[in-house]
């Protein structure tokens, strides 16, 4: 019989026992801090970061942002850095990156302080940090009207006014608080060339058809980081799930560490990414990776630089692969019947609709357990061979027996004729196979 006074007494005792398990739940502190940091970063860079590749030779190249293994610089160090006059605001933008903080500490920041001003608005390049591999440009905008509306495109030109063959990322300017300046960074990757001796940053309004542009040209001092590049040969091959890849070398620059990984051409699967990569030193500190450039059979993974704090021992760790059979990469979509030909059996096209000039495709994807990336495509062509680009890719992971879903918006897709051929560029399947490998930075 149940208790008359408290009909739930037995149940409450069981809930109390469950509470004890709740209280001892393991919280992954590092990952939780990262989630908080990502949320803050996302909020402070309100609109999505733009990635632009101005390079032609890396086809289907992409920068995949992997926010892993981050450690924040100690508050004492951060406050020291913030004391650099005039750069207080921008320094908080790179607080995530220990390597850059140390580079600033080593006086590698080049002050620029050049402004272009007209129509009551100005853009100032405050300073840069650069080496052969990367350049971070700190800039400030002042007096821009309707920042909410204006959407800026940035061009980077060399001394001859030609576009630099680089990849770079920047966030769309957000609305600063009343009376405040807008400060941000442009993060440039030099993969095919070295930074020029003179660089011009062009800010231009994307939406308005006016020729309202701001141009700042400044010299680049190469001497500060001259001969600082260090190459650490590794040449170790790892086989995961029958797929082979070789960690060829690590290149240490003041601003970052670049790990070159080559995939075996005979692999039966295309490797989209190696999961949860991090470098861990002898003290258990993780050196974060902020992006990977993928091109052809290889990957260069960028990590925070430990140039000014070389670990005694450095271990590369990963949890497995995201990969798909090479013969499943191409799919064809027939908009008239909403059917897919080819590709993995787990993808279903749920909807195909035109919205304005764009096309939105809605997919469901089965068997995506533990997949951390979403579904996206590249090399999109219609039946006449006309190319299209993905404008936006949305992803809802599977949970509680629901299938994962993806939304792909194709810019100007309304103009596509006939069937669409697309190559899978990112696919949410994770092959778990943890590994570790020593990187002999200290040899």
């Amino acid at each position: 019989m149940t208790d008359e006074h408290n009909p739930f007494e037995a149940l409450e005792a069981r809930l109390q026992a469950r509470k004890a398990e709740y209280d001892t739940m393991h919280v992954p502190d590092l990952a939780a801090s990262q989630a908080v940091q990502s949320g803050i970063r996302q909020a402070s860079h309100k609109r999505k970061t733009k990635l632009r590749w101005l390079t032609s030779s890396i086809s289907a190249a992409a920068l995949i942002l992997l926010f892993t293994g981050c450690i924040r610089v100690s508050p004492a160090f951060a406050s020291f850095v913030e004391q650099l006059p005039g750069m207080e605001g921008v320094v908080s933008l790179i607080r995530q990156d220990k390597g850059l903080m140390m580079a600033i500490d080593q006086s590698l920041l080049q002050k620029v302080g050049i402004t272009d001003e007209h129509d009551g608005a100005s853009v100032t390049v405050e300073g840069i940090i650069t080496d052969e591999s990367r350049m971070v440009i700190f800039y400030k905008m002042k007096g821009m009207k309707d920042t909410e509306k204006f959407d800026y495109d940035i061009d980077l030109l060399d001394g001859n006014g030609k576009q630099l063959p680089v990849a770079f990322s920047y966030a769309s300017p957000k609305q600063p608080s009343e009376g405040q300046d807008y400060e941000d960074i442009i993060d440039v990757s030099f993969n095919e060339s070295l930074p020029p001796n003179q660089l011009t940053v062009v800010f231009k309004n994307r939406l308005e058809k006016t020729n309202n542009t701001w141009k700042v040209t400044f010299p680049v001092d190469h001497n500060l980081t001259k001969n600082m590049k260090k190459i650490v040969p590794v040449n170790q091959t790892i086989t995961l799930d029958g797929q082979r890849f070789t960690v060829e070398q690590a290149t240490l620059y003041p601003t970052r560490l670049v790990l070159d990984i080559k995939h075996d051409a005979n692999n039966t699967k295309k490797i989209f990414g190696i999961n949860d990569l991090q470098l861990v030193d002898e003290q258990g500190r993780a050196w974060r990776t902020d992006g990977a450039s993928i091109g052809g059979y290889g990957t260069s993974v960028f990590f925070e630089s430990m140039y000014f704090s070389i670990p005694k021992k450095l271990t590369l760790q990963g949890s497995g692969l995201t990969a798909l059979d090479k013969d499943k990469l191409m799919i064809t979509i027939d908009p008239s019947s909403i059917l897919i030909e080819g590709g993995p059996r787990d993808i279903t096209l749920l909807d195909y609709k035109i919205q304005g000039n764009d096309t939105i495709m809605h997919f469901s994807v089965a068997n995506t357990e533990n997949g951390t990336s979403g579904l996206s495509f590249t090399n999109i062509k219609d039946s006449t061979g006309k190319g299209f680009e993905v404008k936006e890719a949305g992803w809802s992971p599977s949970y509680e027996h629901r299938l994962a879903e993806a939304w792909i918006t194709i810019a100007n897709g309304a103009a596509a004729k006939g069937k669409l051929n697309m190559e899978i560029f990112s696919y949410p399947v994770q092959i778990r196979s943890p590994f570790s490998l020593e990187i002999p930075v200290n040899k």
Partner: protein
Amino acid sequence: MTPTELTRAAQKGDAAAFAALMEMHQNRLYRIAYAYLQNDGDALEAIQEATYRAYRKLKKLKEPTYFSTWLIRILLNYCADERKRKIRFSPVTEIRESGRWDRPEDPDLAAAVAALEPEYKQIIILSYFEGFSLTEVADILEIPAGTVKSRLHRALGKLRDQLEPKGEQSS
């Protein structure tokens, strides 16, 4: 600084103060989200999204002393959100060791709680696992205390029905 002072500083635009506040709350947020969503990746995603929403809406929080309550509400709203969650391709999780929560002594009860509808699951997590008082739960969920009471009663009723099907009630 006290949490209230940190909240005030964060509202004035001090990002470090906001980060410190979030750090104080992140374990609790994780546990609530994990108990709710039952998976590490989703729990971390929930923290990220709650952080994002809280940071964006921080200036709208009128009373800084209510930061905790307000933050948990944001998290729960996210968790209960029936709409499809579109996320970026970014979160990468660390390898998680399964703890006692994932290997419950009383698996029937654990499963019954996990299977509750969102409004009942919330209230069990807040009242029994987090140990919030009736009025605190009422503040978090923005419902009258009387409603908390009746909802809690219904949640317990549902759990009992689940665990002891009618006609086989044990003494």
